[in-house]
């Protein structure tokens, strides 16, 4: 890794020599390698599932300057995998929580925190002061933003992504290597990505993939080994199988090809088909509020409650609805009585809105979507119902 920061030779103190002794006695790292690590400047986007192990190991390994970009607050549901944060940090800014842990591990670390959302407006400016970028956010808009900004600034992009128990890792946007857009010029349209029902992630998986990202960062800095340039590593944690695929630099790539069409950063939310502020999507189907459902159920009105979540979600909590997962609805629609009034719910209201639209098309006249789903019910009607 050609760093431009080494005009002043980096000297390790006596304490640092002791701290890094297991590196120093290894010829692949040695004093020269440890000095390269200390001179290196790595920017981690996000301090979540992937960012936690990534930042922890880079700090421990002696990376001199570590930048962290995050705007989020530690949430209780993060703790299952975001190991840089602890229970006492719930409610704190992730940056503050992460900074405490990293400084605790390595007080020699020069930590630079950026309390902001990475955006098209700030990415190029932020990237300028770093040598390597590691994306730990794992969502499409940020991924394309990081990729394009890395290509435009000429910084390697250490990539990792996870889905349930499957992961991908690679190194993109090096001088001669492919970028993420060589692989996937465009993101999938929102409707075709698996819905929330199939979401979730095995807690250890971001650990595994984040440590792979950290490994690649260290190798790039030291200039040793075979980095994952031009290779996509596929990780199947369930089968514990690793496969790799060859990636090629695409001459027609819209950003790193020979005649690029993307020459500056764009609106990545729009590019990924995401518009407007976060709001439970109702698709314009008729809705009922949780308070009204409660009142009408208490009044013993003839209402049929249909729950279109998955069976494992039903086990977490339910309000006694008839369970037909959204994907099974077309085959099981005959279980429903179209003469009765039906209220459909899911976790937050997205899947049930699709179910309502489907039932309307199938000729059901009296179908309503429960706005906000069982989560709204737990928040506003029955606090004994657990949220997940």
């Amino acid at each position, binding site marked *: 890794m050609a760093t431009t920061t080494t005009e002043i030779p980096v000297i390790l103190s006596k304490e640092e020599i002791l701290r890094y002794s297991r590196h120093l006695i290894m010829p692949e790292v040695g004093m020269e390698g440890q000095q390269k690590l200390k001179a290196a400047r790595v920017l981690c986007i996000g301090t979540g599932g992937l960012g936690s192990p990534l930042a922890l190991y880079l700090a421990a390994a002696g990376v001199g300057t570590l930048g962290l970009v995050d705007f989020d607050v530690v949430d209780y549901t993060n703790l299952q995998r975001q190991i840089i944060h602890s229970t006492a940090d719930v409610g704190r800014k992730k940056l503050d929580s992460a900074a405490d842990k990293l400084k605790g591990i390595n007080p020699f670390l020069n930590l630079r925190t950026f309390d902001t959302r990475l955006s098209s407006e700030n990415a190029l400016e932020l990237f300028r002061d770093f040598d390597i970028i590691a994306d730990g956010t794992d969502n499409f808009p940020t991924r394309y933003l990081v990729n394009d900004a890395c290509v435009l600034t000429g910084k390697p992009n250490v990539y990792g992504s996870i889905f349930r128990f499957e992961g991908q890792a690679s190194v993109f946007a090096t001088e001669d290597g492919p970028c993420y857009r060589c692989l996937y010029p465009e993101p999938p349209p929102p409707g075709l990505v*698996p819905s929330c029902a199939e979401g979730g992630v095995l807690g250890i998986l971001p650990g595994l993939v984040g440590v792979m990202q950290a490994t690649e960062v260290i190798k790039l800095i030291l200039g040793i080994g075979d980095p994952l340039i031009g290779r996509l590593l596929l990780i199947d944690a369930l089968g514990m199988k690793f496969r790799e695929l060859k990636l090629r630099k695409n001459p027609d790539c819209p950003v790193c090809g020979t005649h690029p069409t993307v020459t500056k950063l764009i609106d990545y939310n729009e590019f990924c088909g995401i518009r407007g502020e976060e709001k439970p999507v109702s698709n314009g189907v008729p809705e009922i509020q949780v308070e009204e459902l409660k009142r009408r159920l208490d009044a013993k009105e003839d209402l049929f409650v249909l729950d279109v979540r998955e069976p494992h979600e039903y086990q977490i909590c339910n309000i006694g609805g008839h369970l037909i997962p959204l994907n099974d609805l077309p085959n099981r629609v005959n279980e429903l009585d179209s003469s009765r009034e039906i209220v459909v719910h899911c976790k937050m209201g997205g899947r049930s809105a699709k179910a309502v639209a489907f039932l309307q098309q199938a000729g059901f006249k009296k179908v309503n979507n429960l706005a906000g789903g069982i989560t709204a019910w737990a928040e506003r009607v029955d606090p004994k119902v657990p949220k997940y």
Partner: protein
Amino acid sequence: MSKIHIPTPLRQYVGKQSTVEVTGSTVGEALTALVEQHPELRRHLYTEDGRLRAFVNLYVNDEDIRYLQKEATVVNAGDSISIVPSIAGGTLILRSGFQE
């Protein structure tokens, strides 16, 4: 017979299998056989006018078929085909309807 590796997000459309055995002498034929066996998979792999979707990459062994003969790429007995879609497990900056 060749083996098609099915990625996690698409396993729900093939009876939760991680691999499916199909016959076909090219990638195109193998995929046709796959979606005939599992019709629900079709719209996730193909656009309405029958073209392969841009975010679905296909490999024969470890080679991207875009750099071979695309869907006409020959598949020999014992070759494996991988369907590799783009994945993202993280929370979106702005959430949309598909992720709660």
